[in-house]
């Protein structure tokens, strides 16, 4: 009793107005309902089958037999594609009709990403960098979506979307600087390799905790909507990250608050070792869209044109209608999860080979270009050589570069320096001075 009274006292602080408000609403609804029933009664006798549920939480019909909704009520969401595996356009009306230059650019970005992955992966194996994550097999999702956006659209990524940044023009030198954590790294060497970010290219710095970017992207989209700037936010994430509570928050907030955002899920079959059938029971990620009242589509992520078309249309409508879109791009993670992973422990070589050899986004686009006479063996050989050279040269430059000044450990915690930070810095500087023979200080900028 006392507890109840106490709670009432607590709520009493603000509850007067709630109660008044609620009472007002209820009486209004009751009035309306009474009016309707009265109206019906004038014409005919009361018929219970004509009754409509009045619950504020759903608009629906009554039924008079017990029936559970089947979980597969939304199932087998089809996979939208434009090209078949041999790069042939299936339905000409869906061909985005991109110019030769545009398509060549797609191809060069996809393959340059591939070249960078190979070299950085190798350099981790050789102990030159501490960690790496490849993008093998997912190049189509990156380039197709990036090309469909405006360069001032804001990107929130997970970590396996380096191609998006590459498409926007992030130079190889800065990719390398980040992975080496050298003095040119925009992030000042504070994050593990592959955590890129670039303000000028509207690509928000990658964060390790999964799915945190989803509600943030919704908030950014809301702010952008209020600016009336015709921009959109795109938010990338894996099908594993989609299980996080933050993913739910991001979907629900952007739907209820009508945010111009594209949620782009890369469903690549695995979250480290966990296969999709241990990640969720429903029909993938796209099936969740309707539950949130969100427009959704599933596309073939290995078809760069399908990804491009879907993203372009989602972008157009998100801006025009201020609503979120969910794109689930089906693809396959051909590489190990990261350099810390050996995927042979949980999947077969045959499975990997299938995707690598039979259904690869790069080879599909190459078939398309070859069929048009835009690309041949000679071009391929020359470009391979050139792209490898570009990456290796950038790598060499990054490796020679000094590490950031150790004093940068203490900056950017706040926008200003605090007395505590100043003290900690002083103490570190003193320590390094006193014990300099124990530290490779010549590797660091002064």
């Amino acid at each position: 009793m006392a507890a109840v009274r106490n709670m009432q006292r607590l709520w009493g602080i603000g509850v007067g107005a709630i109660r008044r408000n609620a009472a007002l609403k209820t009486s209004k609804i009751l009035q309306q309902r009474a009016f309707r029933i009265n109206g019906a009664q004038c014409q005919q006798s009361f018929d219970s089958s004509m009754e409509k549920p009045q619950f504020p939480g759903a608009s629906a019909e009554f039924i008079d037999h017990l029936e559970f909704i089947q979980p597969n009520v939304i199932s087998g969401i089809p996979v939208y594609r434009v090209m078949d595996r041999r790069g042939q356009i299936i339905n000409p009306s869906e061909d985005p009709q991109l110019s030769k230059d545009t398509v060549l650019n797609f191809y060069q970005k996809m393959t340059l990403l591939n070249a960078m992955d190979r070299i950085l992966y190798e350099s981790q194996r050789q102990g030159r960098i501490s960690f790496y994550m490849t993008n093998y097999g997912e190049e189509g999702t990156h380039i197709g979506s990036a090309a469909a956006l405006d360069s001032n659209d804001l990107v929130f990524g997970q970590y396996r979307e380096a191609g998006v940044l590459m498409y926007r023009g992030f130079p190889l030198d800065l990719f390398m600087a980040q992975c080496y954590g050298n003095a040119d790294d925009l992030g000042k060497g504070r994050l593990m390799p592959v955590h890129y970010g670039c303000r000028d290219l509207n690509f928000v710095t990658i964060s390790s905790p999964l799915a945190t970017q989803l509600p943030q992207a919704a908030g950014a989209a809301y702010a952008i909507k209020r600016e009336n700037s015709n921009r959109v936010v795109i938010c990338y994430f894996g099908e594993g990250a989609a299980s996080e509570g933050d993913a739910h928050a991001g979907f629900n907030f952007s739907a209820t608050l009508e945010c111009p955002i594209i949620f782009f899920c890369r469903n690549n079959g695995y979250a480290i070792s966990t296969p999709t059938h241990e990640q969720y029971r429903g029909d993938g990620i796209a099936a969740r869209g309707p539950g949130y009242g969100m427009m959704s589509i599933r596309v073939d992520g290995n078809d760069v044109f399908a990804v491009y078309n879907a993203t372009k249309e989602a972008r157009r409508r998100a801006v025009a209608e201020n609503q979120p879109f969910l794109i689930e791009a089906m693809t396959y993670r051909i590489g190990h999860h990261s350099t810390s992973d050996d995927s042979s422990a949980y999947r077969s070589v045959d499975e990997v080979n299938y995707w690598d050899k039979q259904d690869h986004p790069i080879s599909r686009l190459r078939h398309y270009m070859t069929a048009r006479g835009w690309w041949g063996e000679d071009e391929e050989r020359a470009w391979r050589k050139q792209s490898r050279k570009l990456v290796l040269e950038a790598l060499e430059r990054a490796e020679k570069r000094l590490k950031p000044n150790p004093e940068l450990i203490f900056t950017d915690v706040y926008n200003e320096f605090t007395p505590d930070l100043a003290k900690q810095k002083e103490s570190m500087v003193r320590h390094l001075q006193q014990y300099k023979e124990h530290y490779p200080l010549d590797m660091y900028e002064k």
Partner: protein
Amino acid sequence: MAAARLLLRSAALKASLSDVSAGVQSSTAGGSLLRLSPSCSLRLKTQKRHATHFTFYPDPVPTNYGPTTKMNLFQSITSALDNTLASDPTAVIFGEDVAFGGVFRCTVGLRDKYGKDRVFNTPLCEQGIVGFGIGVAVAGATAIAEIQFADYIFPAFDQIVNEAAKYRYRSGNHFDCGKMTIRAPWGCVGHGSLYHSQSPEAFFAHSAGLKVVVPRGPVQAKGLLLSCIADENPCIFFEPKILYRAAVEQVPTDAYHIPLSQADIVQEGSDLTMVAWGTQVHVLREVANMAQDKLGLSCEVIDLQTILPWDKETVCKSVVKTGRLLISHEAPVTGGFAAEITTAVQEECFLNLEAPITRVSNDQLLESGNDELITDVVATLVD
């Protein structure tokens, strides 16, 4: 009890209560002995439970910020939010039930005045509220997020600690969410029980990159909240909910700023430094008066105001002067913010200390409203 021990001990130095203090010092269980023996302590507790358990000490009327109006604490919050929405067209306020005015009435009238795109309800999801707020701020707008009770801030812990606090640092200062402020009703209210009473500031004090602020009354609340909103770092602003209505002061109607990370010496003294924030400042002022009356002790009372980054200098200067320090908070003692203050003061003022630093706080693991705690301090002092 701890306060009593320290006070009695310092009193002993002044030879005013030498008999009792000798007894206390000679027994390690002196504290419980003191608490159990006099029956008046019990009587005081039962009487206090039905009355307000502390006396609110209003600030003097501010003279340097223009005209003032009588406001309680929730009205001073509304006033700060009103000033912000009026002057900053990017500012948005959101959270659970804020559109109609909030369960504590802090946003009353703002939606009607500024539009439903600026003051709006979100779904019931704290991690979403904070994540959304970070995103708003990253996109360059001013985000004021409300968490309905500080007790329910924990679903947003990751967004606050791993994201907000580290946004600027991890991006090398290319992105930040400094334009976000999180407001949350905080602390005991006397009848809030387990989950409407907590004081979680210490959890956030462990996260460099955040600013954590607790005001002691309406004038401070408005000036500090406006400073949090203007500050270029993510801030958590905890509002002592027991003061929403109980605390009334003359508050300037225009916008004004009270600097963050600056403690406020609310009462000068020479024998003992007492530090608190929020409601507990008023408790300590009462204690200071009692100590003066009963024990002839002169206490300096400091309102810390900003928990992170805190004003070490003001506290240490005071301890150098008095040689004694007592810190009181509503949160549990283990790992509470008093522990941090204690260590820092011990590092800085070791040779100035004339007695062990004392923490007066909830000695239970859980805080179920601090009536008990306060009557403990006051009652044992009286004993």
